[in-house]
Every structure is written in structure tokens, then in C-alpha cells.
């Protein structure tokens, strides 16, 4: 694919050290601009490793990663990240937590002081989008887990990243909060249209949100299967209980099960 926004090409990654495990091997995938791709797979298959390679936090042992037409050689400021742990700073208010990336990312960090009001308005708009209007001046520890994760999502989005990397962002939340945040994320994606790479354990989450679901094999991880999700958008929660949706989740479940079988001879 020539118009790929993210292109991972035959990537391998061996963790450093004499007995370093091979986390990824022959891993190839591509994500088009504005596409929402979910990555699922058995635990320990290197999904999070893949994330770190795409953001440039780690360098591949073999193969190459290209994002937005450029070889990834270092941390990418066009990426926003959110993890299972919201990791907000407890000494900052929600608003100041959301503004944190602007104090670091290049074009913004020098402008922040002068154009503080404009940036703050942007942060407030984002917080309103995820349903946190009125909580700007609270501290993270005064919020529930789901609200913290919403704020974490805003922090990932504040510098208008072209690429959003989400590593099991809803993994630690209860089912009801999780389902609510699926819809929030879908709304964010529909209004902002970032390219999204979502790592998840939850197959319903993957099918509800993604345009395409990639199934990774057990370690060393590579893309073992791929399914395009045909359902029209916006997708509602009720849709997850239709037979077609259930069939798709079931099929993916079988693929993940098959991917868990460690191929003979693998370390």
C-alpha cells in the first residue's frame, strides 16, 4: 500500500541482553490515514512492543517502521498515547494535565505562554467532548477511574496528533464504564479523524470501534490474520448484540485461539 500512514515492514525486535526474548518477528502491517485499526492477540504476544516501535520509543532489531512518509528514527511528536493506567499527575488539575503535552511538544512549547487562553479553550472543548465539562479544576484523585481515563484520552489528543496509539486504554475499567468510553472514543474519532492504532484484549471493543482488526500470533509476534469490520458507522452499543456482530466476535475468538498455538520450533 503506497498511501499507508503507518507502515511496519518485516519488523523484528529482540529485547536487549544475552537472553533477550524475541518479541516480534516478520511483523508487517499498514494503516491508512484516518483509519481505525485494532490489534488483538494472546497475552504476551508483543502488542505493546509494537506500539513502542511505532512511536519510536524503541528501535526495531530488523525491518523498518515508516510513519507519515518518514522512517521512524526517534520519538514521534505527531503521536498521542494513552495506556491502561491513566498516569495523570496528581499535583496538577485535570486541565493542567491535559495541557502537559503542549509544554513539551515542539511548535507548542514556545507558544504556550503567549497563547495560553487559546490552548486552554481547546483543552476545555476536548474535555467537554469526552463529558468532563465542569471537572477542569478538579485533581485527578478526585475523579473516578473512568473519568481519569477520559482525561488521559484528552491529554493524548491535545496537540492534535495525526496518530493516536491506545494500549488497552479501557482494560482496567468496569464493563459499563468501558462501554460508555467506547462511544466517547468513537465520537472523538469521528470528529477529529486521527489515525488510530488500538491494542486491546476485548474483542467486542475491537469490532465495535475498528475498521480493521489484526490478530497477532503468540511470541514472537506477527500479524496472523486480518478481518475488515463491515458494520456502518456510527455503531451503537445495541449493535453488539446482533447475530452478525456476535458471529464476527466469535470468528476473531477462534483466530486468537489458533494464534495461541505456539508454532513448533519457536523459542
Amino acid at each position, binding site marked *: 500500500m503506497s498511501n499507508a500512514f503507518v507502515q511496519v515492514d518485516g519488523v523484528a525486535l529482540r529485547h536487549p541482553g544475552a537472553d533477550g526474548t524475541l518479541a516480534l518477528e516478520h511483523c508487517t502491517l499498514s494503516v491508512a490515514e484516518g483509519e481505525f485499526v485494532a490489534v488483538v492477540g494472546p497475552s504476551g504476544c508483543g502488542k505493546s512492543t509494537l506500539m513502542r516501535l511505532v*512511536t519510536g*520509543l524503541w528501535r526495531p532489531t530488523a525491518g523498518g517502521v515508516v510513519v507519515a512518509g518518514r522512517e521512524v528514527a*526517534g520519538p514521534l*511528536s505527531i503521536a498521542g498515547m494513552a495506556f491502561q*493506567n491513566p*498516569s495523570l*499527575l496528581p*499535583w496538577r488539575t485535570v486541565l493542567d494535565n491535559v495541557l502537559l503535552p503542549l509544554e*513539551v511538544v515542539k511548535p507548542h512549547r514556545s507558544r504556550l505562554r503567549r497563547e495560553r487562553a487559546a490552548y486552554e479553550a481547546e483543552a476545555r472543548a476536548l474535555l467537554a467532548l469526552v463529558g468532563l465539562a465542569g471537572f477542569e479544576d478538579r485533581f485527578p*484523585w478526585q475523579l473516578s477511574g473512568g473519568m481519569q481515563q477520559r482525561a488521559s484520552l484528552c491529554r493524548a489528543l491535545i496537540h492534535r496528533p495525526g496518530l493516536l496509539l491506545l494500549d488497552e486504554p479501557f482494560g482496567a475499567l468496569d464493563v459499563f464504564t468501558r462501554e460508555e468510553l467506547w462511544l466517547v472514543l468513537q465520537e472523538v474519532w469521528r470528529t477529529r479523524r486521527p489515525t488510530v492504532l488500538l491494542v486491546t484484549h476485548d474483542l467486542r471493543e475491537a469490532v465495535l470501534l475498528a475498521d480493521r482488526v489484526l490478530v497477532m500470533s503468540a511470541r514472537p509476534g506477527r500479524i496472523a490474520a486480518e478481518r475488515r469490520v463491515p458494520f456502518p458507522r456510527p455503531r451503537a452499543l445495541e449493535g453488539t448484540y446482533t447475530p452478525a456482530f456476535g458471529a464476527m466476535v466469535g470468528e476473531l475468538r477462534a483466530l486468537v485461539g489458533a494464534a495461541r498455538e505456539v508454532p513448533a520450533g519457536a523459542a
Partner: protein
Amino acid sequence: MRRSHAEAALPWIVALALALLWEAVVRCFAVPEFLLPAPSAIGASMAKWWWPLLDSAARTLLNTVLGFALAVAFGLALGVAIGASPLLYRALYPLLIGFNSVPKVAVVPVLVIWFGGGIVPAVITAFLISFFPIVVNVATGIATVEPELRDVLRALGAGRLDIIRKVGLPRAMPYFFASLKVAITVAFVGSIIAETVAGNQGVGHLMLVASSRFDVPLVFAGLVVTGAMGVAMYALAAVLEARTTGWATRGQRDGLGFGA
């Protein structure tokens, strides 16, 4: 409201009760004054020698605060460096522990040879004894930044300095203030040791002179004054802590210590 008033008065009540018990024991068993003076005798001695006591206390406080200030500056700098760099940590930590294990009384004569008597050995001893807890605590705070948070910032292009400034330092502040409370009390130990061994001034020197004259009530008066200064400085550190790092106790005001 009534309850918190009672709680505030509690330490005073306990101290008073202890003093009364002490007084009663000394009187009942007719303990001679040169062994254990009664609180009333200590009070009388304080009233009699109020000027030398005040003068010595001021000097000891100055020595202690100077040494403590040096410890804060060096401790903060070294703590940040060690916490941020695993290499420095590995290189310096064993050395620091070894250094901290040396009894400071043994160092004072060396300091006297180098700097003579007076204020310098006391300030340096206070510094030496109080900077270790600060280094260890600040280093811990900086070194335990959550990896996800580091990744979020690094992925945005943050350098090492950015991460220390935005996350490491604020995060280390509760550790830092906790260490200040330990450091300020041991700083008094340091300056008084030096004053006793080498000095010609301060509460340490005053107590040495008093004991050589068998003026035991005055020795105890010196102890009481030192203890009071320690409590006062500790309370100051605790108030500062509550003001600046209230987030760490999640807004609860009933934490440890003398927090407001």
C-alpha cells in the same frame, strides 16, 4: 471543632503530666540534684541563666540552619542527579552509605584541624549528618517515575531534563519534605556534637562547661532548649510540607506530624 482543639492540646498535656511525674519522683525519692534535677530546678536554672542560654541557643540555631541549608542545596542537587542517572546511582551510592556510616563525632577533630574552632566545624557537621536522608529521599522520588508516564512524555519528544522538571521534581517533593523533617532534627545533633567536642560557643559548649562545674540543672536546661528548637523547626517543615504537597495526602488534613 472541640475534638481538634483537644487534639492540639494533647502534646502539651502529656508533656506537663510527664514533668509532674518527674518532679514527684525526684521529690519522693530525694534524688540528689547532681544526678537528676527536678523540672522546677531546671526551670530555676533557665531563669537564672537566661541570657547565656538564649545566646548559646541562637548560635546553635544559626549553626544548625546554615548546615541544614547547605544540606538541602547539596542533597537536592545530588539526589536529582543520582535519581535520574542509574550509572551515577551505582557509582556513588555505596560511597554515600559508607560515608554516612562514619560516626560524625569522629570527624569533628579532623574538621578542627582543618578549620580551627568556632562556627565552621559545627556547620559542616550539621551538614554532613543531615544531607544523607535528603539525597536518598529525593533520589527515590525521581527514580520511581512511572514508566508509562515517562513513555508518554518521551514519545512527545521530551528530553531527560523535561521529564525531571515536569514529573520527577514535583513527584519527589513529598519525599523531599519527609526527609526535611528527619534532616532538621539530626542537624541539631550534628551542630551540638561539634560544639561539645570542639566549639567555644553554642548549647553544646554551654552544656560541656556546665557539666564540668557539676551544674546539672543547667545541662538539662540546655537539653530542654535544644529539644524545643528541634520541635519548632520540625513543625515549620511540616507546615511547609502541608502547604506545598497537599496533593500527596489527597487533601486529607489528618496526616502525620504537625500538619496544619
